[in-house]
C-alpha cells in the first residue's frame, strides 16, 4: 500500500486539498498582504529619508487629521457603548417582548453606513424634518455638516453592533452565577456592576473595538455629511483621486491608518485576553424582576429603537416624494424615482454580477482557510491576523494599495485577463469581505468533532476523501449562512469599490453616493430602498431551515425515505466534547 518516495511526493503535490490551500494562501498574500506591505514599506522609506518635512505643512496636516479621526472614533465609541450596554442588559435580562426589541435594534446593521449618512441629512440637514420641527419650536439646530453629522450617523449605525456583541456576552453568563450573587445579598444593580460587567468585560471591549475601527475607517459618512471636518480615510481617498497633488500623500496617510488601526487592535486584543472567561453558551438566563427597572428599560429601548429606525422611514418617504422641500411632509407621492432607476439599470446589474462572482469565491476561500486555521499553531495565528486585516484597516487603504500594486503591473504589460472588466473589483470585494465568511466557517469547523475524521482515516479514507464525504457535508448549513452574510456585506460595500471600480462598473452603493452628493435625494432614496430590499431578501433566506431542506433534497436524490418513528432512548448529542 505504501508507495515509493517519488510516489508519495507526487501524491503530496497532486493532493487537491494542498493545491486549494496553496491557492488560498497565495490569494491572501497577493491581494491583501502585498498591497498593504508595499505601502507601508514605501512610507517607511519616506520617513527614514526625512521626506516627511516635504511639503512643509505635511506634519501639521497629518497631526490635525489624526486628532480629528481619533476624536471622532473615540466619541462615537463612548456613545455607542453607553447606549449599547443598557440596551443589552434591558433586553437580555429585564424587559418583555425581547425578540421584537432585539430585531428592531439590530435591523440597522443590515444597512450600509452611507445610507445612514444620507438619512441623517434628510432628518437633520438644513431643510431636514427634525431641523424644521425644532425651528418651529424656536430652537436653532447646529449645522450638522461636520463632526456632529458624522458622529450622529456613526452612532445610529454602530450602536446595534455594540448592542449585539454585549448581548452575546450576556448569553454566556450562567444563571447560577447571578443567582448565587443574589443569594449572597446583592441588589440587582450590585450584581450587574460587580458580577455581570466583569464577566462580560471582554465582550464590551470587543464591541468597543469593532465600533472604533468601523468609525475610524469609514469613508462614506465623512464624504457625505463631513463638510469641512477632515478625517484620515476621506483625505486618503480624495488626495488619491486628485492627480494634481503629491502622489505620496495618500500612501503615507494609508500607512498611518494601518499603523494606528493595527496598534489599537493589538492593544484591545491583549486587554480582551486578560479579561476573557472561558465561554460556553448557556440556555437559561437570569431575570431581574424589578418593576421600575422594567418600565424604564422598556421606555429606553423603545426610544432608541425609534431613533435607530427613523432614518429608514425618512429614506422610504423621500423615495416616493416628488420633492421634499421646506415643508414637513412631502406634497403627494410619486414612483418617478423608481422609474428613473429602471431607465439606468446598470448599477443594479453591475452589483448583482459583481456580488454573484465575489460571494462564492469568498466563501470557498473561507472554507479552505478555516480548515487550515483549525490545525492551530503558527500558521493558524498568521491566517487569523491576515483575515482580520481587512476588518481592521479602512477599505480605502486596501483599495489604494491594490491599485498601486496592480495598476503598475498593468503599466508594464503584465496585466492578467483577471484584472480586466470587473476582475480587480471582484478580487477587492472578496478580500475586503472575506473576514465574515472566515469567522462563520471557523465557528462551523470548531463544532465538528475531530474524531469523525479520524474514524474516516482509520476506515481507509484519504484526507481528500474524508474532507469531501465526512467534513464537507457537515459544513453545508454554515456555508449557506456564510454565502448570505457575505452577499449582504459585498453588495453594500462602498469604500473599496469607490477606489477600485472602473466607470462602466459602478455599483449600487457608488450610485447612491453619487446621487446623494449631487442632490438627487429622491433617486438616492429609491436606490437605497432597492438595496435594502435585496438585503432583506437575503436575510429572509437565512430563516429557511436548510438542514431540513438539504436532508429532503438528498433523500429525494437517493429515492429512499427512512422511517421517521421515534426511538426509545433519548437522542444522543453528536458533538460532545472529547
Amino acid at each position: 500500500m505504501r508507495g515509493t518516495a517519488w510516489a508519495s511526493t507526487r501524491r503530496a503535490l497532486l493532493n487537491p486539498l494542498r493545491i486549494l490551500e496553496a491557492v488560498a494562501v497565495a490569494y491572501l498574500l497577493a491581494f491583501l498582504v502585498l498591497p498593504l506591505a508595499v505601502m507601508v514599506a514605501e512610507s517607511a522609506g519616506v520617513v527614514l529619508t526625512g521626506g516627511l518635512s516635504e511639503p512643509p505643512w505635511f506634519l501639521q496636516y497629518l497631526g490635525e487629521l489624526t486628532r480629528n479621526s481619533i476624536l471622532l472614533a473615540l466619541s462615537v465609541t463612548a456613545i455607542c457603548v453607553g447606549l449599547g450596554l443598557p440596551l443589552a442588559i434591558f433586553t437580555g435580562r429585564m424587559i418583555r417582548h425581547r425578540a421584537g426589541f432585539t430585531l428592531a435594534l439590530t435591523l440597522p446593521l443590515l444597512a450600509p453606513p452611507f445610507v445612514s449618512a444620507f438619512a441623517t441629512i434628510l432628518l437633520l440637514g438644513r431643510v431636514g424634518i427634525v431641523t424644521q420641527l425644532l425651528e418651529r419650536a424656536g430652537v436653532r439646530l447646529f449645522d450638522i455638516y461636520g463632526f456632529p453629522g458624522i458622529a450622529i450617523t456613526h452612532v445610529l449605525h454602530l450602536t446595534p453592533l455594540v448592542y449585539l456583541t454585549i448581548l452575546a456576552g450576556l448569553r454566556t453568563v450562567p444563571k447560577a452565577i447571578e443567582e448565587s450573587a443574589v443569594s449572597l445579598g446583592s441588589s440587582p444593580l450590585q450584581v450587574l456592576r460587580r458580577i455581570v460587567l466583569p464577566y462580560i468585560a471582554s465582550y464590551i471591549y470587543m464591541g468597543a473595538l469593532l465600533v472604533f475601527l468601523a468609525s475610524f475607517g469609514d469613508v462614506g459618512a465623512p464624504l457625505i455629511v463631513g463638510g469641512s471636518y477632515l478625517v484620515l480615510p476621506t483625505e486618503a481617498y480624495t488626495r488619491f483621486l486628485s492627480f494634481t497633488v503629491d502622489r505620496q500623500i495618500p500612501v503615507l496617510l494609508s500607512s498611518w491608518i494601518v499603523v494606528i488601526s493595527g496598534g489599537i487592535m493589538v492593544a484591545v486584543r491583549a486587554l480582551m485576553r486578560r479579561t476573557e472567561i472561558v465561554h460556553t453558551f448557556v440556555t437559561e438566563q437570569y431575570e431581574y424582576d424589578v418593576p421600575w427597572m422594567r418600565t424604564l428599560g422598556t421606555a429606553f429601548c423603545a426610544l432608541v429603537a425609534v431613533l435607530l429606525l427613523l432614518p429608514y422611514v425618512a429614506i422610504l418617504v423621500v423615495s416616493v416624494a416628488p420633492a421634499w422641500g421646506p415643508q414637513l411632509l412631502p406634497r403627494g407621492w410619486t414612483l418617478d424615482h423608481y422609474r428613473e432607476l429602471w431607465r439606468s439599470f446598470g448599477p443594479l446589474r453591475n452589483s448583482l454580477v459583481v456580488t454573484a462572482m465575489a460571494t462564492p469565491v469568498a466563501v470557498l476561500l473561507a472554507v479552505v482557510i478555516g480548515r487550515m486555521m483549525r490545525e492551530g499553531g503558527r500558521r493558524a495565528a498568521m491566517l487569523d491576523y491576515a483575515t482580520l486585516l481587512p476588518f481592521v484597516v479602512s477599505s480605502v487603504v486596501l483599495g489604494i494599495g491594490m491599485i498601486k500594486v496592480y495598476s503598475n503591473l498593468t503599466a508594464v504589460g503584465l496585466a492578467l485577463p483577471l484584472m480586466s472588466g470587473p476582475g480587480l473589483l471582484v478580487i477587492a470585494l472578496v478580500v475586503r469581505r472575506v473576514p465574515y465568511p472566515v469567522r462563520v466557517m471557523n465557528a462551523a469547523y470548531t463544532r465538528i468533532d475531530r474524531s469523525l475524521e479520524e474514524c474516516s482515516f482509520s476506515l481507509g479514507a484519504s484526507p481528500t476523501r474524508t474532507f469531501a464525504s465526512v467534513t464537507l457535508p457537515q459544513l453545508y448549513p454554515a456555508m449557506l449562512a456564510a454565502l448570505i452574510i457575505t452577499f449582504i456585506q459585498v453588495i453594500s460595500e462602498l469604500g473599496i469599490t469607490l477606489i477600485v471600480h472602473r466607470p462602466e462598473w459602478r455599483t449600487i452603493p457608488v450610485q447612491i453616493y453619487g446621487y446623494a452628493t449631487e442632490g438627487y435625494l429622491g433617486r438616492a432614496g429609491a436606490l437605497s430602498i432597492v438595496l435594502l430590499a435585496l438585503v432583506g431578501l437575503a436575510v429572509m433566506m437565512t430563516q429557511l431551515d436548510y438542514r431540513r431542506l438539504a436532508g429532503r433534497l438528498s433523500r429525494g436524490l437517493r429515492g429512499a425515505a427512512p422511517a421517521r418513528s421515534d426511538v426509545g432512548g433519548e437522542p444522543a448529542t453528536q458533538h460532545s466534547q472529547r
Partner: protein
Amino acid sequence: MTRVRIVDIAKAFGPIWAVRGVTLEIGEGEFFSLLGPSGCGKTTTLRIIAGLERPTRGEIWFGEERVTAVPPQFRNIGLVFQSYAVFPTMTVYDNVAYGLRIRRLPEAEIRRRVFAVLEMVGMEALADRMPGRISGGQMQRVALARAVAIRPRLLLLDEPLSNLDAKLRVEVRAEIRRLQREVGITTIYVTHDQEEALSLSDRVGVMNHGILEQVARPDEIYRHPATRFVAGFVGEGTILQGVLTRDGDRCRVVVGDHIAFDVEPSVAASPGPVWVCIRPEALRLARAAAPGAPVASGVVEHTEFVGPTVRADIRVPGLARTLRLSGSSVDLAGGVPLGAQVRVEIGPAGIAIGPER
C-alpha cells in the same frame, strides 16, 4: 488479527512529554487495556498506534510490518471513540458501509457484510436511521459495527463507554467483549475506569505520567501491584510507609510506631523501607482479642452505607492515614457506630508491599 509490538515510543507536545518510553507487546487476539488517570498518556499511546499522532521516537510493529510512518488510512485498524463519531450526515447503513465502499467492494458484498455486523450488535432494524434519531448506546453500537466491518487487523477503543449512563455501560461492555471473542480480533482498550479494565481484559497496562507502571493479568494487578501508584490507583486500600523484616520464611512489616503484622512471604521486596497497601479485605473486626493476633485499635471516624456493604474508616493512633474496613452490612450492622473504640485484625492476605523508591 495481529501481534502488536510497541518499542520505546515517546511523544512530546512542545515541552511536555505525554508518553516517555513505552514498550509493550500485545498477542494475537488478546484484549488489552491501557488504564490510568486522565493525562497519563494512554490516549496518546492509542493515537500513536492508530497513526493519528507521529511518535517523537520509537517504533510500532503490526506483525512483521513496521508501521511507524504509515498514515492511518493505510493501517487497517478499527477505531471507536468516546464521542461515538458517527458521521451525522449518513444513515446507520452508510456509516457502516463507509469503509467497505472505500475498499471498493461490490455493493452486494457490502450489503451482506454491513447487515452481518449490524446483526452482531443488534442494530439491523435501524439501518436506515439518521444518527440524530438514535440513542447514545445505539450510536456506540454503530461505531463498533463500523469499526469491525472492515475486518481490521486491530481494534482500538478510546473510552468508548464514558458517555453512556451506568446501566448502559455494563450492557455495552458485555457486548464489546462478546463481539471481540466472536471476531477474535486483537483489541486495545483505553479507559480510566478500573472496573472496566479489570473485567474486560486479558491483560492490563497501568500508565502514569507517560510510563507503563505495570503490565499484568487483572487479578495480578490487584493482588500484586508493582508500584505504589498502581496499588493506590487500582482497588481500594490504605497506603502507608513501613519497614519489612525477613526472618527465614516469615515476613513481617511494621507500620507506624508499633503496629506489626505478617505478610505473605511471596511478596517481592527485600528488607528495608517499603510502602504497604492494606486492602479492606485484609482487615477484620476483632470481637474478642485472640491471643497473639496482630491487632490495632482505633476510633471509628467515618462510616458509609453502600447497600450490601458498610465501609468504616478507623483512625489508629500513630498511623498517618485511616484504615478502611469494609464488610457485609449484615455482619457489621451496629458493630461500627461513629466514635466507637474498635480493634481490627490485619493480614496476612490482602496486603501488598513494594520497595519505597
